[in-house]
């Protein structure tokens, strides 16, 4: 896999969430995603960026344009050094929330992505990776 372009953004304030949305919008548009696919991935990014702040105490997001076997996609990596997720399986369930939200950020974002990975170590932090490929 080849990374064609990378940008890193701070994710600490509600305004940063808007900046992440804009960067993902621009990047998916540049890669040639359909309007529906752009909107899906921007929405997924918004959910996870908010989690990074609300649950992770802030962190950063990496937005990459990737190329694999002739297919282009966008990969988002959100990392924080917060308390981590004790039970990832539970966090991935619809309606499960510890933050007073609706509990659909994680499972909903997974549905809006082609690939979705969560790595978390309690006490150390959380890394969430989302990939969406351009539809051929």
């Amino acid at each position: 896999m080849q990374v064609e372009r990378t940008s890193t953004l701070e994710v600490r304030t509600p305004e940063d969430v808007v900046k992440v949305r804009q960067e993902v919008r621009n990047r998916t548009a540049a890669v040639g995603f359909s309007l529906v696919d752009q909107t899906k991935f921007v929405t997924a990014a918004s959910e996870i960026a908010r989690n990074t702040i609300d649950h992770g105490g802030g962190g950063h997001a990496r937005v990459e344009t990737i190329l694999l076997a002739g297919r282009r996609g966008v990969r988002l990596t959100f990392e924080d050094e917060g308390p981590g997720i004790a039970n990832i399986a539970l966090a991935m369930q619809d309606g499960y929330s510890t933050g007073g939200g609706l509990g659909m950020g994680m499972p909903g974002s997974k549905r809006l992505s082609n690939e979705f990975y969560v790595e978390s170590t309690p006490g150390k932090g959380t890394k969430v990776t989302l990939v969406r490929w351009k539809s051929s």
Partner: protein
Amino acid sequence: MEQIPILKVGRCLLVSIQIDMHDKLALALQDDLTQRLVETRARGVLIDISALDLVDSFIGRMLSNIAAMARVLDAQTVVVGMRPQVAITLVELGLTLTGIQTALDVDRGLALVNRLIDAEGDDGAGGAH
């Protein structure tokens, strides 16, 4: 300080969200609308989201909260102008906009909100203001 304008049109309050709202702004709008409902005794709230290119769970929750608070204050809420790609994404995200009526555009939304108000019966408080 950024603020989203709230206009009184007949018996309704009209809000048109024209910018990508961050969460604090969404919460401020929720508070402002509630305040204005009390001040104006409006019977309806029309929220135009035709300029929004995304509705995530936070904005969705804000819309549901506004509808619920308006209901308690004897007002009906109609959301208008949702873009097709936003609607598709909302469904896949798993968000149901509880308690919210929708219409395609502001004209139809106004007609709907007026029908809803009329169906409730006007107690005379709304029309004269």
